[in-house]
């Protein structure tokens, strides 16, 4: 060992170089870090206490459950980064699914027609939410709370009116069903012994797309700006209204997508469902590091947030506990996430890099 001492490198001179951030600082500056640590801890926890959780099949189920929250969480996270809320996101999913099913059935149309009309409707709901928020200046919390109740009423009312029950008729024998099912809810396929559901693939695709959009495009820059400081954004020429309305429509289109999954996975839609899910999406985004005040967050974080809920929802079942505890966990997780994010962000943004 004595000879290696002589070749020890001289102290690095980096006075001319910008001071390098430590790995810890870089990690702590990521919005996802809190959620990531929590996800690892929860995974280890259920791995330890619930033997059935350890199988690959269980992991596949967890991923599928996560994707059903995660797809919507992508749109909701972008919207939150843009500084707005959408409480109607949960029931809008059902509105889209009901529209597609009942329109095609009642008018004996190809299911594709129903799907396209449902997409148009979902985009219109998103547009209406965004336009009202922009036009009136009323907080999106209130505007979308109104939409939430209206859609909930429409979902039940129209379904009862048309079918006489609270669910749509089974559409599995209609034209276009097989193709649409392949797209939105194809049967699980196996990759190297691991069973994968199509929604997981779509989920990862949407997360990647949203991340690229946010980090690498002009629109992404604008989303951060309208959420961080809408007045400043407007002053430098960012089309604030268009960006925000676009984000609401993004949530609408994902609501349609997930609605299609529900329709083609179960062939029928229960009109009273979806209520409460809007909070799951928002909590996933917040746990993933999105700031409630906007301007900060990441779709990857929201994905980790959704994964945490998928793990817990299934983990509690695998552990043989009363699933009621899942709700308690949901609330506790949100509270912890908000507090942790607050401190992490203060720590990260208060570290001034010295200037020359």
């Amino acid at each position, binding site marked *: 060992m004595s000879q290696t001492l002589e070749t020890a490198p001289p102290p690095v001179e980096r006075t001319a170089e*910008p001071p390098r*951030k430590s790995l810890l600082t870089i990690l702590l500056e990521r919005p996802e870090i809190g959620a990531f640590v929590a996800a690892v801890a929860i995974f280890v926890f259920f791995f330890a206490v619930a033997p059935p959780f350890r199988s690959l099949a269980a992991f596949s189920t967890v991923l599928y459950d996560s994707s059903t929250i995660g797809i919507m969480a992508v749109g909701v996270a972008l919207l939150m980064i843009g500084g707005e809320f959408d409480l109607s996101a949960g029931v809008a999913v059902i509105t889209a699914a009901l529209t597609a099913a009942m329109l095609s059935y009642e008018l004996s149309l190809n299911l594709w027609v129903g799907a396209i009309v449902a997409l148009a409707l979902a985009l219109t709901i998103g547009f209406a939410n965004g336009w009202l928020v922009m036009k009136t200046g009323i907080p999106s919390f209130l505007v979308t709370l109104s939409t939430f109740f209206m859609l909930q009423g429409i979902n039940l009312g129209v379904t009862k009116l048309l079918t006489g029950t609270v669910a749509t008729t089974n559409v599995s024998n209609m034209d276009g069903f097989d193709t649409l099912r392949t797209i939105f809810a194809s049967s699980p396929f196996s990759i190297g012994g691991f069973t994968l559901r199509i929604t997981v693939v779509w989920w990862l695709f949407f997360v990647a797309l949203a991340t690229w959009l946010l980090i690498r*495009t002009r629109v992404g820059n*604008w989303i951060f700006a309208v959420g*961080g400081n809408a007045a400043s954004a407007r002053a430098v020429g960012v089309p604030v209204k268009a960006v925000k309305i676009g984000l609401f429509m993004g949530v609408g289109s994902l609501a349609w997508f997930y609605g299609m999954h529900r329709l083609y996975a179960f062939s029928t839609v229960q009109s009273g469902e979806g209520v409460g899910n809007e909070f799951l999406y928002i909590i996933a985004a917040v746990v993933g590091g999105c700031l409630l005040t906007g301007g900060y967050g990441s779709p990857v974080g929201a994905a980790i947030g959704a994964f945490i809920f998928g793990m817990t929802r299934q983990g509690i079942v695998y552990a043989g506990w009363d699933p009621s505890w899942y709700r308690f966990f949901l609330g506790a997780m949100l509270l912890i996430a908000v507090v942790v994010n607050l401190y992490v962000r203060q720590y990260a*943004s208060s570290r*001034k890099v010295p200037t020359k």
Partner: protein
Amino acid sequence: MTETVTTPTPAGDATGAPLIEMTDVGKAYGAVRALEGINVRVDAGEITCVLGDNGAGKSTLIKIMAGLHQHSEGTVRVDGEEVRFDSPRQALEKGIATVYQDLAVVGLMEVWRNFFLGSEKRKRFGPFNALDSNAMRKTAKEELSKMGIELADLNQPIGTLSGGQRQCVAIARAVYFGARVLILDEPTAALGVKQSGVVLKYVAKAREAGLGVVFITHNPHHAYMVGDHFVVLKLGRMSLDAHREEITLEDLTALMAGGDELETLAHELQRSGVASADVVKEIEAVEHPHDRPQGTQA
């Protein structure tokens, strides 16, 4: 002024039309008249200082120039051509850039993203247009060092910079994006003495670069240090319009301190026993300055 030729002189003529010329401009918000009879011109390579107390109409004036508000009376000409801006973007297209008091920066976003916000550089990425973040980082660094601002890390959120640094980034941004007129809304209001000095240096630099600068302030000392032309607003009207050689710092200070109103107030306070006779004398000395000027920083 009645004989002034109204036909617009061709732009680009060095001695021709001013960059911005406001004639009898007024603005009413419903029944409230915020501005009335404003005549201001902004020339290239000149700093026009607009001074006034809170509520004097300074903000309204610059909002009209910047395209955030529309004037309800009079005419605004840019390069001799009458304009009426519907949005800040239209003003920007004419080369009128505004650096607001709140700087129009987004605190949580990186310095380079803020620098290019609203005018991002893009490059083809397959069928899409993606941000050219490397070029933007490089350009932002170059432009900032041209203005003498050296930041170690352009990836830090702009909210972590000091007030003076943020102000300078905002000015550098406006200059880079081809501003011909730079409107600065109270750039030194929230700053300490040293940082104010740094900002005033960049204001002077912008003039040297040939820009027309509109410098809004309520600090006559800062205005007098760099200004070529001074406009004082009072209750939405112009109470002074003078070139540098026509006015002294003492005059400007007295005018800004409130002049007659302040003296009247002092006498009133004396009568009601709040202020002593000494205070009134002191105030009179400021208003009729024959010895040293008194600081009037807010």
